[in-house]
């Protein structure tokens, strides 16, 4: 049995995300959302996304500074239902 979370992106996409299946960035790509990224490894900050509500869990600790209210979807998974502004 897996836990999935509901992730809302840019107020228009509603995804169901299984955190064991990959990063939040991959989940957005799977849903055909236009994503922003460079390194895909937490060290460039290009994927920076507003975390309007909810919590994420970092599977790799990012080296880029995560400003309060932001997240880096290339290296995290949802830890609750999320509302994102990517």
């Amino acid at each position, binding site marked *: 049995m897996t836990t999935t979370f509901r992730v809302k992106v840019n107020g228009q996409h509603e995804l169901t995300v299984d955190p064991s299946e990959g990063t939040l960035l991959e989940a957005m790509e799977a849903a055909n959302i236009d994503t922003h990224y460079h*390194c895909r490894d937490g060290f*460039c900050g*290009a994927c920076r996304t507003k975390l309007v509500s909810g919590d994420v869990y970092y599977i790799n600790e990012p*080296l880029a500074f995560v400003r309060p209210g932001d997240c880096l979807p290339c290296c995290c998974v949802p830890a609750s239902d999320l509302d994102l502004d990517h």
Partner: protein
Amino acid sequence: MSYSTFNKNQINPLTEPMFFGNSVNVARYDQQKHSIFEKLIEKQISFFWRPEEVDVSRDRVDFNNLTSAEKHIFISNLKYQTLLDSVQGRSPNIALLPIVSIPELETWIETWSFFETIHSRSYTHILRNLFTDPSEVFEDIVINEEIQKRANDISQYYDDLIFYTQLWQTHGEGEIEVHGEVHNVTMRELKKKLFLCINSVNALEAIRFYVSFACTFAFAERDLMEGNSKIIRLIARDENLHLVSTQQILNLWQYGSDDPEMKEIAEELREEALAIFMKAVEQEKEWAHYLFRDGSMIGLNEEILCQYVEYIANLRMEAIGFDAPFKQRSNPLPWMNKYLVSDNVQVAPQEAEISSYLVGQIDSQVSASDLGDFDL
């Protein structure tokens, strides 16, 4: 005050600010005030590479077949990148090491600068392969007006900080007259110069390379100059780390997790910091204009390149707490991303022709007849 290469006072680096505290004595990394810099060092070292490992010899044939407009684009970009890395290979060391106060940041600065010297060496590697004598290309860097304009903006903040630090270290705070000019040296003034300098370096690492990167990868999209592209991908990966380090410094100040006076200065000089960034954006757009003065190249033109600069600038500015100033929110060059992904650097699809990745081999013997009759 005067710098000592081994500060004999007992100091606790865990309570020192990043800059302008006590100078570092013991290079120890078992404890860290800002562990991020130790992590950046580890990551950067794990990226270690040597230009000589990349075989660029096939690029020569490609280069000879480029149109003259494309040759202008290719060579001008290499000149500009050579300038940027010439500055970055020395300036963080000269400007920041005399004033840094925590060992992990001190070592990060040295590691960072060292990698910039690898970048510089790689431009020589690329150019030596294209020209029997690349002197003309290197010599133009200090003559070319377009490059000079940028050089001034890039070096001026470093030079100013270095000069004031020298005054402070020899005379202490106060009014100091040098060659008839009076300089008011105070700690506040020094910290302001440091703040502006880091903002200028941040803008450099954030956007100044991306016009050139886009041209390189646009050639690679056409299967041209692939040795060069391989090298630039390694450079781009390093530049991302450098950028993250300057973003970290700026954010640590802004959020007051370091020197409270730097937090005040960050607020006080916010508009100036913004202006530094916006000027860099303008200069990059002008650079795109200069590159395409003789004609465009397939897949790129001035307009789309300027849109890309705006797109990147938005991302970079939001990372340090500014609002995105441009309306370009979507990526106008989506293919850029595949060259900027960290994992792909080692195992890109193009490396199927493994011959372009020979370890430790380079044939730099080029005869005049190889070069045919093209002009620089």
